[in-house]
């Protein structure tokens, strides 16, 4: 499995309140949530994002509220993968549970810039920065988590 797209780059401590502001949590509709994704940190995100694009950020991505609406909004907006130096733990867990691909890679998070074209190979954990012509190696998932993802998320893995 691979992801390939243009990068939307953010900094440290991107919280779930800016990923999907609480004023939109009166719905669980995926498309409607996606239409407000990243609104309070990057009002042009929704306009600019294309199917397959990749979010890259630094430390503690997804901190704050446990709202699963945050990874849902990101996934439904077309983002194929989120790469960060570190993730807040509930966001990390929620992403695995709903099948949004996420990778921890400090080296990639620091070097990749907004607008770079990036390819991710999930089998090897190799992230290729096509714009800069270099690669980075992400930590692979533990087997337990690979199993949840390969079965299509937590609930499918329980069947």
């Amino acid at each position: 499995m691979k992801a390939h797209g243009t990068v939307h780059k953010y900094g440290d401590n991107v919280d779930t309140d800016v990923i999907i502001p609480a004023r939109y949590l009166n719905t669980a509709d995926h498309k409607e949530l996606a239409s407000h994704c990243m609104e309070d940190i990057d009002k042009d995100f929704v306009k600019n994002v294309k199917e397959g694009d990749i979010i890259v950020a630094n430390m503690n991505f997804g901190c704050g509220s446990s709202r699963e609406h945050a990874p849902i909004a990101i996934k439904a907006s077309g983002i194929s993968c989120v790469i960060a130096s570190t993730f807040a733990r509930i966001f990390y867990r929620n992403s695995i549970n709903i099948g949004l691909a996420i990778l921890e890679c400090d080296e990639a998070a620091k070097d990749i810039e907004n607008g770079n074209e990036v390819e991710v190979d999930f089998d090897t954990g190799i992230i290729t920065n096509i714009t800069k012509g270099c690669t980075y190696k992400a930590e692979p998932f533990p087997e337990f988590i690979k199993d949840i993802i390969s079965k299509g998320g937590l609930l499918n893995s329980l069947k």
Partner: protein
Amino acid sequence: MGMTMSQKILAKHAGLESVREGQLIKAKLDMVLGNDITSPVAINEFNKAGFGGVFDKDKISLVMDHFAPNKDIKAATQCKQCREFAGKYDITNYYDVGDMGIEHALLPEKGLIGPGELCIGADSHTCTYGALGAFSTGVGSTDMAAGMATGEAWFKVPSAIKFNLTGKLNKYVSGKDVILHIIGMIGVDGALYQSMEFTGEGLKSLSIDDRLCIANMAIEAGAKNGIFEVDEITMAYMKERADRDFDIFKADDDAVYSKVIDIDLSTVKQTVSFPHLPENTKTTDEITEDIKIDQVVIGSCTNGRISDMRIAAEILKDKHIAKGVRCIVIPGTQKVYLQCVKEGLAEIFINAGCVFSTPTCGPCLGGHMGILAAGERAVSTTNRNFVGRMGHIDSEVYLASPAVAAASAIAGKITGIQ
């Protein structure tokens, strides 16, 4: 190798002799919690997966608190969906307008969580119940759906930071100041993926309300859970609320911690978190400039308990809030609300020019009941001051204790109290 308190609770619920840091386990749950914004997502997933029923109708709590009383038609529809689900599966602990409270104020008050128990909740502040010696952590809606169906959840066993508390808090310094002080010290990811375990002789000077407030904000340091060693104060609190037996776990003497931090409670000062991260702390005596405010919020799952109401009322008694300031007081539960009425606190708040609201999460997350316009500034006893948290992205939230919030409401600017 010895285990921490959190590790012992996880091992017990996984049916294992011992667990070690990093181990992935499946554990049995004593309580699964959701609210009116996270439960609809869980219910959709629960239905989509085709589960036939819930694992235990007594071990699920659904609390309508975030956008309730319903703020708009969509919020009303979400509450209706939860109500119908609770009816269909005969959920014992379903709390709606009239008997609800803010979930993390309500569940401890009702005795639904206690020492040694394991709880997940689709709300990040589920870590609050660690104050009672439970292992309790926030998860998402899919985990909640799986938990409701199977009574189990997967966990990666965390390492821990030990906080060794000594001394005694000074007058007008509370659990809120302690946790803001700690977050200021270790940062918003200072305990990422870890447990924060609180122990030491200083515990005996911390009330359950102080402990609930401290554990509540463990998530704001990135922690998986916050947990307090169980003592007589915990057991006295539980005795009034629950008649079941509890397992009490103490950390082993040779438990391994990633860090041990000593805190002398007598040195903690009144503390405020500046925008836009809880780690941006200053003590009130370090604030030299005049920071004028438009709104004060006293309430939330962090500070909506009776001791919070009492301290705010003590400061506001026979005073009036500053002209141009709006002060919104929100008791955490119906029981706290009624206590405020009976003890005359409601009258003090209203005479001081505050509004006194039914329990709701409301303004804390920018839902309703006190949204900020561009350029406005609030002092709030809530738990997050992220960009846009209480309204417009150009508004500001300063986090503080009920004492500092009440004193600031009177002064019209951020101030401590002597």
